[in-house]
C-alpha cells in the first residue's frame, strides 16, 4: 500500500485563495445554506431567486438549482425534514458547500478556462460543469462571481484555479 500524502498537496487553510493583478479568489463562509425541494420550491423563499446571469446584490438570496430545488443562502433557520404542510423537503447544507468569491477584470478570462459561462446565455439555474466538476456559478456585481462546489471538491477547485494561473496567468 502506497502512501500518497506527498502526491496530493495538503489542503490550504488561507481564505485568500489566490491573488494576482486584477484577479482575487477568496473563500467566504455564508451564515446558513438550506437546500429546499418541492413542487413550489422556487416560490418557497422570500429571498430573491437567482438564476444565470442574475446579479446577487445582498448577502441573502436563493440560488435556483433545479426545476424543483433552491439553495437559500443566508436565509432563515428552517426545521430540517419533510414539511408536509408546505410540501417542502428541507436539509441544512451550511457545511456542505465551499463558497468562493472571484473578483477582478480577468475573472471572465479565468472562467473561460473552465467551461462556457456567458452572461449573454441566460439559464434559469446556476448549476453547471466548470473545471470538470459540478459547480454553482452566479454573478455578483460587474466583474464578480460566486462559485460553489461541494466541500470535498474545494481543494480540487482551488488547485485547478491555481494551476491555470500559474501556467498561463499572464495571458488570461
Amino acid at each position, binding site marked *: 500500500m502506497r502512501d500518497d500524502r506527498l502526491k496530493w498537496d495538503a489542503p490550504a487553510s488561507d481564505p485568500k485563495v489566490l491573488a494576482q493583478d486584477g484577479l482575487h479568489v477568496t473563500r467566504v463562509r455564508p451564515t446558513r445554506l438550506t437546500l429546499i425541494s418541492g413542487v413550489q420550491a422556487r416560490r418557497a423563499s422570500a429571498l430573491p431567486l437567482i438564476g444565470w446571469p442574475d446579479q446577487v446584490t445582498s448577502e441573502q438570496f436563493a440560488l435556483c*438549482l*433545479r*426545476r424543483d430545488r433552491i439553495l437559500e443562502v443566508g436565509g432563515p433557520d428552517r426545521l430540517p425534514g419533510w414539511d408536509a404542510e408546505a410540501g417542502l423537503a428541507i436539509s441544512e447544507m451550511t457545511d456542505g458547500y465551499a463558497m468562493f468569491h472571484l473578483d477582478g477584470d480577468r475573472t471572465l478570462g479565468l472562467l473561460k478556462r473552465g*467551461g*462556457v459561462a456567458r452572461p449573454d*446565455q*441566460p*439559464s*434559469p*439555474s446556476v*448549476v*453547471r*460543469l466548470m473545471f470538470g466538476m*459540478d459547480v454553482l456559478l452566479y454573478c455578483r456585481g460587474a466583474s464578480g462571481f460566486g462559485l460553489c462546489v461541494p466541500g470535498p471538491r474545494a481543494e480540487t477547485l482551488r488547485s485547478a484555479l491555481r494551476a491555470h494561473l500559474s501556467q498561463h496567468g499572464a495571458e488570461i
Partner: protein
Amino acid sequence: MQLFPCPFCGDRDEREFHFAAEAGKSRPDTTGAVSDAEWATYLYAQRNDKGPVREVWVHLTCAELFVLERDSVTMAVLRATPLRQDPA
C-alpha cells in the same frame, strides 16, 4: 462537443448529460407473472434506430430526466421535453 438542451436549464455542454435509455419502455409489473422473455425484452431489447431517435437523457448537473429527440446520424437535436410531460 455537442450542445444538448436541458428542458429547464437550456443549452449545455454534452458532458453535463448522460444517456439513460431509449424512451417508451415501461417496467413490467413484477408483482404479477412476468415471463423470462418479457423481462429480457424490457431489460435488453433496443430499437437502436439509425436516424431520428427518442431517448431518455439526464442532465446530470440539475438531475432532470427528459426525452431527447435527435438524429443519431447527423447529431441534429430535434426536441427536448421533460419526462414528466412525456405523453408516451
